[in-house]
């Protein structure tokens, strides 16, 4: 993140001594800011008021991240209903700064289409969110389809499967309407190249060690005169699942 010109800091209601022990235990070098009394957490309006006052846990925030522009404007924020599901730094770099890493990717080709599918990192902890980028190149003269599409065609899609992926959301840019005079139809198509973006959440139940993220790219290609059979191309991306980082008392 710092190499990318981005500052990083974390705020919690912990005392400095607690943060010092946590930073030492996990080799954290970025600032862990101590907001004892939760004045800054209150100022941001994110104090968790569900924790009763007088309880030692009163003062914690709803956990989340802000991606800030250099002038302090919120570009994006990630507050998730389940505090155990957190975005990764690499996922944020991909989603909010369009920085595609090259650590975990697979290239596939079928017929006249080549695709590179990348995860934002080659390692993740259970319940972490990773960014997904897919770059598709289509040979000249051919096109593939977007949405919405009549039933007899297959739209371009990328779907992850398997136990390691708990949630997924992948979006492609809007396709360009193309008129097929001979058919009397106008259909949304992609020509040349396109990029899809999204994210996956690693399952909270996946065991630490080597694992694979599996999925399928679906598309159908046509040119001016013929349509080929719809393609389903399976792929696998190797990934390392890390152990969860516990708090000091766990």
């Amino acid at each position, binding site marked *: 993140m710092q190499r990318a010109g981005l500052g990083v800091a974390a705020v919690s209601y912990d005392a400095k001594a607690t*943060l010092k022990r946590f930073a030492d235990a996990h080799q954290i070098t970025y600032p862990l800011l101590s907001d004892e009394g939760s004045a800054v957490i209150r100022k941001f309006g994110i104090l968790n008021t569900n924790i009763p006052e007088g309880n030692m846990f009163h003062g914690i925030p709803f956990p989340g991240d802000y991606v800030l522009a250099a002038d302090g404007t919120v570009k994006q924020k990630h507050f998730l209903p389940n505090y155990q599901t957190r975005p990764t730094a690499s996922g944020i770099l991909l989603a909010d700064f369009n920085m595609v890493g090259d650590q975990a990717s697979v290239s596939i080709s079928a017929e006249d289409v080549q695709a590179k599918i990348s995860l934002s990192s080659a390692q993740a902890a259970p319940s972490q969110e990773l960014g997904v980028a897919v770059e598709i190149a289509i040979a000249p003269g051919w096109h593939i389809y977007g949405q919405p599409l009549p039933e007899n065609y297959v739209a371009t899609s990328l779907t992850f499967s398997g136990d390691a992926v708990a949630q997924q959301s992948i979006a492609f840019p809007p396709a360009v309407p193309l008129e097929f005079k001979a058919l009397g139809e106008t259909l949304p198509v992609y020509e040349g190249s396109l990029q899809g973006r999204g994210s996956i959440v690693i399952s909270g139940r996946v065991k630490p060690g080597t694992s694979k993220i599996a999925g399928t790219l679906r598309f159908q290609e046509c040119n001016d005169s013929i349509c080929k059979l719809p393609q389903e191309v399976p792929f696998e991306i190797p990934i390392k699942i890390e152990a969860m980082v516990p708090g000091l008392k766990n």
Partner: protein
Amino acid sequence: MDSTELINGILRKMGSGEKIDPAEFKKFVDLQNADLRTGPAVGSKVPDFALEDQNGRRFTLHDLMGSKGMLLVFTRSADW
């Protein structure tokens, strides 16, 4: 059992290391996450602040900012 009682009970058990019933814990998580507040809206500025880090160095928002911006994370606690 009312929600305050449930939350206090679970937090006590977390503190003492006592075994927690998974169904009770699920209810606790849901209660805790109720009425989610996410602070300043996208497009608005966050308030400035000055806080000390783990090494006693004092930082304002300006000190922390990189040339292209920054990631500011709020966590529950490093302690539990």
